[in-house]
Structures are given as structure tokens and as C-alpha cells.
């Protein structure tokens, strides 16, 4: 059976393709060093279109509109610019109602795209641009520690990593959030109170790494102005020991948080990247593998969710307490317990 892989690696090579879904201007060049928040491509998003009836506006026949036009298709116009006219005895004119672009002119009508905002895509991780994707974005590569999460609030930032969780099941408390943490990326464990998210915003912090949070905080987390990443899930799930150790040992280093949503189809997922020099010993990453004895796995469902263990042996078909039957594996937990679990409930940790 195929196994999905989650990366929790002390040193690896990380390559991410960062592209816009629409034609965009690429802002970086090959070989350029970028930070996580640097935009790699941007595009103008036109907020709305306006269909202007020039003939009616000027009071002239459709066929005669062309002779009164003061713009062409593709022209950028500012609010108040004259688009057509003057025409007739009253010298009627047609002005642009906003900043924008003349998209099309036909049969006495003019289609104007009103300028909206500029949308951009950030690098998402600090590194080097290794490839440009024409009219879309770029590929960014770096080496460092990588911790993939399961949920993110869609924001990106970077800062110095500060660990505030002594234990992997510690609940984030007000006493842990003091002014010395301003501008840092906090590595905590569980969060059960929306106040903590608001206090972190007030400091402000540059990011928050949690093992889990109460499901009711989801909306607050989505609205937080800084990136939030969950490593385990919702509820009261402690941080797995590998991630906890990695976050602790890298305290004081710069970390980048890309809290983009986990999209199973595209493969994008929230992640923490801690850039480290390539001094050899880089582990190649695999996105998928087959289950084998000896592999480290994480359990995804209760009552053992977020526990790590190693596969002792695989079982072609087994029956579980729920009564369901499926392929399974005997897993040795770090607590010393041996469990028979459905393979579907395990993911490889690499």
C-alpha cells in the first residue's frame, strides 16, 4: 500500500515552485537570493469591468463613434481622462470613471477594465531562484530543516525562532507571551484560547507554530495577521517528539513560515523552513513510499493521533476495534506499547 509522507527533517534540500494562476510579471531573476516574503511575481487584478455605450453617451450614431474616440484598445487611462468626444453642439465628452485600461471597442461600445489591486506571490521560503517560469513565477531552492504541518492560515512571514514550549503538550498561557518575543516566530504546543492568538497579534509576533488548537479558534486563527501552522491537527494533540526536538534545537535561528492551506490535489501544504548551510549529509526527500518494517510512522486518528512509532510488521488484512477490516501494521510506540493499526491511519515520517 502507498504511504503518504510528511517531512520532519533536520537537513534537506527544499525546492518549491511559486507561480501565479494568471499571467503575471516575474519580478526575480535566476540566481537571485530571496527571502520568504519577497514577491516573485505580480499581476494587476482588475476589480471590475464597465461597458460604456459611447454612441449613446455622445449622442452620435454607432458608425460615427470611431471618429470621436480619444483612446485605443490597450490604452491605460486615469480617472477623468477623456475617452471620447467632444461631439455635437453641446460638445459632449465621455470621461473615464476610474483608473484602468481600455480593453475593447466595438459597435459603439467601449469596455473598460477598472484597476483593482496588485496580486503577488511570495517566495514562501528563503533561498535562491533556480528557474524562472515564464509569465507565472519562479522556482526557489534552499537547504535547511523542514517541518510540514497539516493546517495553515494562508500567511507567510519569517523571523527568529523562539521556543516557548518546554513540553510537547504544554498549553500556551498568557505568561509565556512577553514583549521580548516581539518580531519572533513562536514555537509553542497546544492553544486552547483565542486570547492567546490576539495577544500574539498585539505583540506582534511574526508567526506561530502550534501542535494543535481548539477547533473553535479556527476563525480567529484565519483572521490573525501573522502565519499560524498546526503540525498535528485540531483538539488537544501534543507536538510529535521529532518536530518538538527540531524546533528546540534550532531556537535562535531564522525560520520561515509558509502557512498555505494543505491542498491534497496540488500538493501544497503548510511548512516551516529553517535555512541551514549545506555541509553534506542532506537527506533526499520522497513524497510517497511503500510501507516497510522499520519505518517511522505517525498515527493520524484517535486515540493515538500524533503518536510516533516504528513499523514492526505488515498484516495483509486485520480486524480493528471498530469492526472494520483492512490492511494493517503492528507499530511499536515510543511508550513501549505495540499496536495493530490500519495502514490507512499511518503516514510515513521522513
Amino acid at each position: 500500500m502507498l504511504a503518504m509522507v510528511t517531512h520532519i527533517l533536520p537537513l534537506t534540500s527544499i525546492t518549491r515552485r511559486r507561480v501565479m494562476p494568471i499571467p503575471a510579471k516575474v519580478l526575480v531573476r535566476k540566481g537571485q537570493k530571496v527571502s520568504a516574503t519577497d514577491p516573485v511575481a505580480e499581476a494587476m487584478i482588475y476589480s471590475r469591468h464597465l461597458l460604456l455605450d459611447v454612441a449613446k453617451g455622445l449622442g452620435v450614431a454607432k458608425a460615427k463613434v470611431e471618429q470621436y474616440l480619444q483612446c485605443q484598445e490597450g490604452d491605460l487611462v486615469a480617472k477623468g481622462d477623456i475617452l471620447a468626444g467632444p461631439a455635437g453642439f453641446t460638445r459632449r465628452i465621455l470621461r473615464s470613471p476610474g483608473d484602468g485600461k481600455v480593453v475593447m471597442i466595438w459597435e459603439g461600445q467601449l469596455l473598460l477594465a477598472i484597476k483593482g489591486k496588485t496580486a503577488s506571490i511570495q517566495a514562501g521560503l528563503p533561498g535562491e531562484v533556480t528557474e524562472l517560469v515564464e509569465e507565472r513565477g519562479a522556482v526557489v531552492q534552499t537547504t535547511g530543516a523542514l517541518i510540514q504541518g497539516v493546517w495553515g492560515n494562508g500567511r507567510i512571514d519569517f523571523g527568529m525562532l523562539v521556543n516557548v514550549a518546554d513540553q510537547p503538550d504544554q498549553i500556551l498561557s498568557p505568561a509565556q507571551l512577553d514583549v521580548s518575543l516581539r518580531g519572533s516566530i513562536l514555537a509553542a504546543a497546544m492553544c486552547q484560547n483565542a486570547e492567546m492568538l490576539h495577544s500574539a497579534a498585539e505583540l506582534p509576533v511574526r508567526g506561530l507554530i502550534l501542535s494543535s488548537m481548539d477547533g473553535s479558534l479556527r476563525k480567529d486563527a484565519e483572521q490573525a495577521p501573522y502565519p499560524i501552522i498546526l503540525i498535528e491537527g485540531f483538539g488537544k494533540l501534543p507536538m510529535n517528539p521529532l518536530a518538538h526536538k527540531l524546533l528546540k534545537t534550532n531556537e535562535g535561528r531564522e525560520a520561515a513560515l509558509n502557512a498555505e492551506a494543505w491542498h491534497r490535489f496540488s500538493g501544497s501544504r503548510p511548512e516551516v523552513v529553517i535555512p541551514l548551510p549545506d555541509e553534506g549529509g542532506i537527506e533526499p526527500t520522497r513524497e510517497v513510499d511503500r510501507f516497510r518494517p522499520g519505518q517511522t510512522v505517525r498515527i493520524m486518528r484517535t486515540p493515538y493521533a500524533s503518536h510516533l512509532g516504528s513499523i514492526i510488521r505488515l498484516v495483509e488484512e486485520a480486524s480493528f476495534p471498530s469492526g472494520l477490516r483492512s490492511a494493517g501494521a503492528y507499530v511499536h510506540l515510543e511508550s513501549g506499547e505495540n499496536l495493530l493499526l490500519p495502514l490507512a491511519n499511518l503516514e510515513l515520517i521522513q
Partner: protein
Amino acid sequence: MATSIVETESLLVMDVGSVTTRAAMFDVVETQYRFIGCGEARTTAGAPFHHLGEGVRMAIDRLQSITGRRLVGANEELILPSTADGAGADAFAATLSAGEPLRVVLVGLLESASLESAQRLAETVPCSILQKIHLTDHRGQDGRLDAILSARPELIIVAGGTEKGATRSVLKMVEAVGLACLLMPEDQRPVVLFAGNQALQKELQSLLNGIVNLKLAPNIRPSLESERVEEAQPTLAELYVQLRREKIPGVAELSHWARGQILPSSTAFGRVIRFLSKTQSGDKGVLGVDVGGGATTVALANNGDLLLSVAPELGICSTHTALTDEKLLSEIAFWLHAEYSLQQLNEYLHNRNLHPFALPFSPEELAIEYAILRVILRHAMLKFLRETPASGVATRDGQLPYVEPVIVSGRFATSNSNLPRLTMTLLDGLQPEGLTTLILDNNVIMPSLGAAAAINPLLTVQVLNSNAFQHLGTIIAPSGKARWGSPALRVKMTYESGREIKREIKMGSLEVLPLPRGASAKLQLQPLNRLDIGMGAPGRGGSVRVVGGAFGVIVDARGRPLSFPKDVKSRREVVKQWLWNLGGE
């Protein structure tokens, strides 16, 4: 391409779902077509594979190890046709529902006419309807254009204009479509399916020529009173596969192996239901419900007329957004014996959404999954009844018509060993009325049989009549208003041996009349208190011959919709009793 039975004996069908890929093998066993076996694997349409091939190959590998039949040759190609040593298959077909739902914009004239028909057409395949544009939507041309642009559709369905009816208004709507498409990058332009006034086809072709790929289908609303969604379904099904082929690597190879015989899973499922309705004697329809990983499909057919509706928001693994609504969380909690706060259920659903492939490990988790399945089934049925036209196949004033049988298919059926709980869940969710038979497609082969029907209809007929399906029982469900505890139905069952049992069933109860699997008996039914069991009128009874299923004959006198004691403790007791009566605990 039809092939005769002499040429095509064995058939391999791939059903590529959003979560699971299945390889099902059918062959002749002692002069009859039979289901031989099925191999399953995880679908690999998304990351990190981005190619269906890996999942297809693994499902075939599994099938090879189950059946002992070699299906892939040394060159890694499917062995087609079969060889003298029994390797390979004579034909290949495929169904597809993998990938994200199709992004669709609907354009029509009247919201209550052509737009409704366009929606019914769109919902015959997995789709997300992102915008609805019509004459009275209070948007100008530029507003419509922005609506289309912001939706970034893959498909725009344009309906409207009855035959010999409106043309100018339709052209005005199409103008907005054309303009919007013109503003999109060429490689992101949608396909436009026109299923409106046929007199406009040529004009539309010249209007949209060079701008978009225009497909034409028969008018789905030829008059205000009539709807012909079915006639445009094959074109939409073809488009669905074409659009998925462009988006998901591996579909093209599948299509090549299948020589074009690749259908959306919902279309294939609907085809079998329609097929069954044609073979049905009497005036009852056939109901099929397929609860897939990515969508739930409801199909209702009567005498060859099919109503089909796919709800992507109600897939067993895609329910997260729909179900975290507080009202629906309460509905899930309603079915649970243990106390769960809405917060706990919310977290369960959030985590379930993060790991959609995982299985319930504990009995408590399984109970939550059954509760979710009940809510999915109920909402799929309600949506179906709400959105289907009042005339035609679905009559009885917006209620589910009397059907025979009800076939339920889905991922949950394959790994389930708790048949009483599952049967109870299906009854609670579907709430069939009158006299019917509940059948479980425990091998999840209904879509495969739909694909097979195009190549070899005899195979479909014979497998449907084989023991590849699990007959759960004959259901007698009186409907109408009666007080709890009052007499609902008098039943006399006469076995083939001549032995008789008589029961008076009370309102609010669920009872099982023992009848061994496959054995037949004569039932004499007399509904009381003017309850209706579908024998012509409220209070009217009669005789009927029935065949026993896994649970014999189930008399479900719990009312429609189901009614419960108001007090939580009593409700839990009574639900426990119902399950107990089915042999569960």
C-alpha cells in the same frame, strides 16, 4: 463501439474515483457472466503523483493477486484481448470521478425555467456551480462579464429560448459569455455547451467562432412545460471526460485502453438504474444511491426515464465544509448514543478532513461515521427531491415515489462488517416508503456495470441477477400520520412450508419477520389508521410475494419522516431497541 458477446467474454473495468481506484473483473462462469473480483488502490490523480497510472496499476496488481489471473504483460501493457492461457481480458472500459468537481457557470433566461434545467443537467456530473446568470439577475452586461471572469469556469452551460421562442435575449446573454471568454487567457477559456433554442445554433457558431470551443446539445427546455435534460446528458458526459483528460494526466491513457469507452461514474451509475427500470414490471421506479468519496449520486428511474443528481458537497470525504455548519453538527450529534459536544464533533470533522483516507479505529469513531453517513444520505435525498421537477419520474408531491428496489453503493459498503448498524443507517438516511427491497452493492460495482452495459448489455443483466449484490431485506414502511403505539399494520406471512405468522405492528416500531435469505413467502398486508403502504390508497392492503434477504422482512413503522420521543434518554432507548430488533447492539 458495440462488440458481440462472442468476441467479448471477459471484461476489465476501472472505476477511478476521487479517493479509490477499483479494477473489477467480469467473466463467463458456467455460461453466465459473473463478477470475478475487484482490486483496490488509492487514486493517484493528485499530488505527489499527478497521474492516474500509479493507482490504476496498483489496483490491477491487487486484482491479479486476488484472481490469480495475469492482466499485465511483460511490456507493462494490459493484455487485451485475452490469450489462450487465460491471461488478460477481452475488453476494457472505465469510469471516472477523480479530480475536483468541474467548475461550472450556468447561463439561462428564466431562473425558474431554463436555468433550473441547466442546473439539473450540470448536476448529472460532479460539478461546482459558481455563478448563475439569467435575465432577471439585476446585473448589467458588465456585471455578468465580471461574474464569469471571477468564477474562472471550465464549462459554461447556456440554456434558454424555447423552440420557436426567444432568440434576442439568448444572444444578449451569449454576448456576455463571449466577451468574458475573450478576456481570458486562451489556455484558460472554458468550453461553452449550448443546450437552448436550436434555431440559434448557427448564429452562435459564428458569434463564438475562434473565441471558445462551442459544443451543441439538444434543447433541454424545448417548451416551458417540458424538460429534456436527458438528451443533453451524453454531450455533457463526453465533455466531462474531455475536460478531465486535459487536467488529469493518465485519463488519456485510460481512454485509449478503453477505446473511448470511458464515462463519468455518475453517468455509468445512472445508466444501470435506468437499465433496471426498463426491466421492471409494474409502475414503480428504481432508486440508486452511490455515496462516493468525492460526491453522492442519487439516481431515480422509471420505465427508462432517469433523474440523476450528483452532490459533490456530500461525498463521504468531501463533507467537511457542508457538515461543520452548526445545524448539521446537531443532526450528527442527534444520532449518537454517547454525549458529544458540537465542539468535539467539529474537531472530529476538521481532523477527518485533514486525513480523509484514514479509517475509524474505535467503535466510538465508527458510530460517528454512521451518524455522518445518515446525514449525508438524508441530505442527498432531500436535495434530490427539492431540485427534481414536480412532474415526471418523481411524483407524490415532492415525496420520494414508491420504488423497487433501492440499491445503495459506496466505499463504506466494502469494509463494513456490522451489517445491522449499516442497514439501520441506510433506513434512517434514505427513509424509503411503501414496499420495497433494500440492496447493498457491497462490491461497489454499479458504475462498472454501467460502463459494461455499453460493451456487453448481457453481462450487466446477468451480473445484476447474480449474487454479487447483498439483498438486505424486503422493507415495508407505512407512511402517514398515526399516534406512537397505535396499530400501524397487520401482517400475515405464509412460508413455502405452509407455516404462518401473524403480527400487528405498532406505530413507532421496527420489527423483523424472519425469512431466510433467498426463501420466498406470501405477505398479506393490512395498513391500519389510514396509513399508506403504496398499494393504491391510504389504508389499502393486499398480498405480495417476497424473497428473504439478510434480515428477512423488515417492517419499518417509525413514520415518515422518522419521529422520535422528545426526551433524549427515551430517544436513545428506542433507537437502541430498533437496532436490537435488527440483531445489532
